[in-house]
């Protein structure tokens, strides 16, 4: 892999070259599946079309660990950590942000189907022009003085969460020449076990950039990729106010035994 250019600012490769690399990895995965290999439900850490992964993925297999007590618990978050207002990203300034007002809602459950209640959900995103309120984002699209793009909430008793925000736009990046990210919202989640900790990205249905986006395509399995795509839900849309998207998040299974789960009640 040493011959590959790992400079994130190089942007020397074309989209067609990246597409060819992605297609080859996906074809190899499908062939392995046909030969009986397991489904890959996660993103690959070593995914060369995402150039920045080349020097930042472990080259050795992850080491199997049996979780100890600390891994079987998570930090507690409460109303002293998160205010109810933080789930509405459209009311953080004096005026209304520009863009399509949306509600993104869903449930956080674990791999055993249990609701993850009272846990922290964080999200952040670009604005309606594809620009982050981050000092290092140099994309020449306008900042919106009425939109920061950061939200937090605690899940409800049934694992439910809801954010009111603005639909983010796609934005350019330097992975290759004319590289664009699919529109997305970053999410950060905690479970009941720290081993369930996840940071991910939610996408919007039908994005024309999906096929071109090596971050989205780093998940080799189509069904697994689909799990990051919200669905439009008209029951979440509100008359003359917002459109609505639903996205349920499944954390990995708890590593606790049933008895340990019960102790928490």
């Amino acid at each position, binding site marked *: 892999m040493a011959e590959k250019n790992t400079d*994130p600012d190089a942007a020397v490769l074309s989209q067609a070259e990246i597409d060819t690399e992605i297609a080859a990895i996906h074809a190899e995965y499908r062939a392995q599946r046909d030969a009986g290999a397991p489904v*890959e*439900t*996660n*993103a*690959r*850490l*070593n995914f060369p079309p*995402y150039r920045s*992964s*080349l*020097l*930042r*993925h*472990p*080259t050795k297999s*992850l*080491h*199997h*660990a*049996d*979780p*100890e*007590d*600390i*891994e079987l*618990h998570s*930090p*507690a*978050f409460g109303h*002293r950590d*998160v205010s109810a207002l933080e789930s509405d990203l459209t009311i953080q300034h004096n005026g209304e942000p520009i863009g399509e007002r949306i509600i993104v809602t869903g449930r956080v*459950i674990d*791999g*055993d*189907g249990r609701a993850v209640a009272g846990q922290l959900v964080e999200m*952040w995103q670009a604005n309606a022009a594809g620009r982050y309120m*981050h000092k*290092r984002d140099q994309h020449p699209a306008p900042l919106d003085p009425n939109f920061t793009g950061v939200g937090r909430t605690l899940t409800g008793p049934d694992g439910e969460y809801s954010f009111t925000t603005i639909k983010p736009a796609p934005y350019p990046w330097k992975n290759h020449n004319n590289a664009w990210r699919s529109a*997305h919202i*970053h999410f*950060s989640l905690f479970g009941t076990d*720290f*081993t*369930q*900790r*996840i*940071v*991910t990205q939610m996408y919007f249905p039908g994005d024309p950039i999906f096929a071109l986006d090596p*971050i*989205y395509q780093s*998940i080799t399995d189509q*069904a*697994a990729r689909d*799990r*990051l795509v919200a669905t439009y839900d008209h029951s979440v849309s509100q008359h003359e106010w917002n459109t609505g998207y639903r996205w349920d998040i499944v*954390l*990995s*299974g708890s*590593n606790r035994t049933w008895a340990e789960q019960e102790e928490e009640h």
Partner: protein
Amino acid sequence: MKLTPTPGQTVGPFFGYALPYAGGEALVDRSHPSAVRLHGTVYDGDGVPVPDALLEIWQPDEHGAISRQPGSLHRDGYTFTGWGRAAVDGAGHYSFTTLEPGSTGPEVAPYVLVTIFARGLMDRLFTRAYLPSEPATLERDPLLSSVPAERRHTLLASRESDGSLRFDIHFQGEDETVFLTYPNTPQFTGPVD
């Protein structure tokens, strides 16, 4: 497990205005009589510091008790919540002020659970920063004893002359950190060496 988990994705380059928060790195105040600094540098496969990584630590208190108290995001200065978050600086260096954890079991050597996120890293990685301890304590530990001897040092924090604990992280290379996976937490690395 009945349901398939949602995949992770990279934290990307622009988490800096969203995830870090004031006081995130200070699980206790520096003036706490048992305060210790846990710090180190994150390196990529060329040995170059990674300037856009984020670390989280999660640990018991000095008696091995796991906090059930909220307040990590708005610390009150008195409650030890056991969890902290810090972004690395431009030189790839992170720093926490915390307590040295106690052990959570008779055979378990004391350690701080460390989670790493970074641009270019597609999914979070877990590792453990074990405190410098008696060799017998380390040898007894179920995880350490399962790690090949030549890689075990990557899980051990070292004591600096100023009393701080140093724990560097290497994504690749000769000192590649031992990263962990758990029984119900599948993770696919892609091709490995």
